[in-house]
């Protein structure tokens, strides 16, 4: 009897340990973020994560042009742009999710708030402010057509759609950072001279690939593959504010995933996916002093692979219509031009938007788990921005070397070294644009992610 009880105790103890490592969520981001395990979710599960981060760059200044001698925007730490190195709480999120009425598995909710220092809370160097990050309700009443409404991540590029706390790198790719994390502006920033009051800066928090709207989605088993779809209509105006025009953004997402083992964020699988976003934006053109409407389109196609010790991903992306185009003269927003040329003297640097341009990009990621605790990663990403007009084109290339040390399943240290370069390929090497971009610094980042 004593022996039997000992074995039962052992079984209970083993089960406790085993259960802690099992993810009960579904195997893709749409399901993972938008649903709960049927009849197996709590009324309110509190969770979140913290990301203390240290970043260091050399801090090279603008090398040429009207803003020469000022701090270079791309060598300063966003969002405050006041230093080239330092500590910050990149993200600090806490949320609650579950089934408010646990007996009915057909309705679930997801709420998350952001307290960290980033574009959501302090866009363009403004004062920090905690903001709602997610607030959605999913209705699971229609077979094959779950409905999610509220504020949530849009179905988009794998880099952005994946849960950030399992992201293998500290910083996003060039395309992700510039063209997917949307900054909302009142004007295009194409002013010349000090005639306008203040610099062109975002009029609200960064979009962070969140939108408010309605999404229909679901996942099906098709011949051993988990095939998912999502179609969404959203304001296209960022986090927690109403639409500013009568046009809704349209999102379409399709993926199919062969699951080899496991569940949840780190499922072992091969996934193929494609997505698109189309919308319109109204913006004030400084050159004509009129408000006009322009398209904003994004799309991508890619794959992820994770099996055993190997992790890999690749994606090709495109932007069409309105694209983000950096700052005046590469200077930190707010810097005053010393000139020449004469009309620029006294102008305050702001952000720029190109309204009818294109950009294309790709990234390739490869990771290898050396041990259960150590993973090595390398990512190469290239973005060509402004490809419609040769003088607009800027090519950004970054190779990121990374290592992740997993203290345990919920806590890890990531170290990234980014070898960054940029150029204006259609302009002479002596052109101001190339002289400025030559000064783009490499970037060292360390980050602890602690999930609770």
């Amino acid at each position, binding site marked *: 009897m004593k022996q039997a009880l000992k074995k039962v105790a052992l*079984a209970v103890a083993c089960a406790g340990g085993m259960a802690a490592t099992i993810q*009960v969520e579904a195997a893709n981001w749409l399901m993972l973020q938008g649903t709960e395990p049927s009849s*197996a979710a709590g009324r309110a599960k509190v969770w979140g994560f913290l990301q203390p981060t240290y970043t260091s760059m050399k801090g090279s200044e603008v090398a040429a042009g009207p803003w020469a001698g000022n701090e270079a925007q791309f060598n300063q730490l966003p969002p405050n742009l006041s230093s080239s190195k330092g500590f910050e709480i990149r993200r600090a999120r806490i949320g609650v999710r579950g089934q408010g009425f646990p*007996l009915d598995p057909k309705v679930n909710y997801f709420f998350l708030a952001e307290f960290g220092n980033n574009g959501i809370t302090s866009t363009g160097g403004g004062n920090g402010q905690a903001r709602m990050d997610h607030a959605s309700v999913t209705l699971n009443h229609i077979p094959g057509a779950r409905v999610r409404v509220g504020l949530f991540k849009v179905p988009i590029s794998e880099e952005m759609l994946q849960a950030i706390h399992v992201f293998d790198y500290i910083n996003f790719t060039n395309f992700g950072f510039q063209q997917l994390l949307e900054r909302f502006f009142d004007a295009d920033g194409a002013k010349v001279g000090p005639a306008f009051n203040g610099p062109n800066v975002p009029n609200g928090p960064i979009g962070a690939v969140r939108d408010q709207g309605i999404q229909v989605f679901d996942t099906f088993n098709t011949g051993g593959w988990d095939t998912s779809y999502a179609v969404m209509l959203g304001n296209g105006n960022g986090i927690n504010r109403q639409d500013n025009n009568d046009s809704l953004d349209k999102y379409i997402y399709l993926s199919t995933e062969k699951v080899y083992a496991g569940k949840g964020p780190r499922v072992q699988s091969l996934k193929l996916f494609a997505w698109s976003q189309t919308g319109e934006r109204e913006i004030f053109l400084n050159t004509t002093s009129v408000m006009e409407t322009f398209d904003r389109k994004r799309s991508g196609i890619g794959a992820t692979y994770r099996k055993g010790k190997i992790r890999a991903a690749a994606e090709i992306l495109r932007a069409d219509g309105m694209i983000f185009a950096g700052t005046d003269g590469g200077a930190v927003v707010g810097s005053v031009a010393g000139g020449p040329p004469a009309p620029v003297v006294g102008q305050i640097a702001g952000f720029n938007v190109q309204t009818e341009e294109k950009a294309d990009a790709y990234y390739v990621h490869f990771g290898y788990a050396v041990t259960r605790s150590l993973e090595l990663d390398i990512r190469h990403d290239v973005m060509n921005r402004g490809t419609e007009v040769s003088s607009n084109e800027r090519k950004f290339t970054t190779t990121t070397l990374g290592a992740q040390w997993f203290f345990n399943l919920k806590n890890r240290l990531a170290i990234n070294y980014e070898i960054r370069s940029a150029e204006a390929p259609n302009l002479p090497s002596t052109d101001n644009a190339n002289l400025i971009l030559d000064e783009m610094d490499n970037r060292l980042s360390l980050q602890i992610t602690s999930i609770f």
Partner: protein
Amino acid sequence: MFTFTAKGSVLLAALALTVGGVQSAAAADKPFAEKKIVLQISDPNPFKQTLVLNVANNLLKEYGTEGVEIEIVAFGPGLRLLFADNANKGRIQSLSTSGVEFRGCSNTKKNMAKKLGYVPVLNSIAKVEGPGVVRIVELVTDNGYTLVKP
């Protein structure tokens, strides 16, 4: 002597049948089971669903499918484990195939029906006869089961 022996055998057989009748039907399925465990789930925490299924699985591994009788009794908030659409239904099916019995509480089912406005659909594998707590008392006091509440 012969007559007495025959009568004695018949008596013993009748006695054995009577005792067998008192014991659970589940016990009759595994006549060589050395251990008898009843697992209770009555907790609203969904983690407990995974835990109780893991415990059952570990017990089967430890004693073998023929070496242990396992019955999982769900009542109160724990009855959600036996809802037909429960995310763990695949594991429940698998454990049932290995001989694990699942029992739901009829009182809880009635109370949940009042709250929901309709009778919840339970997994067809589960038996729902009488109160869950009474089932546990019967198994422990009359049938030699050990109660484990993970």
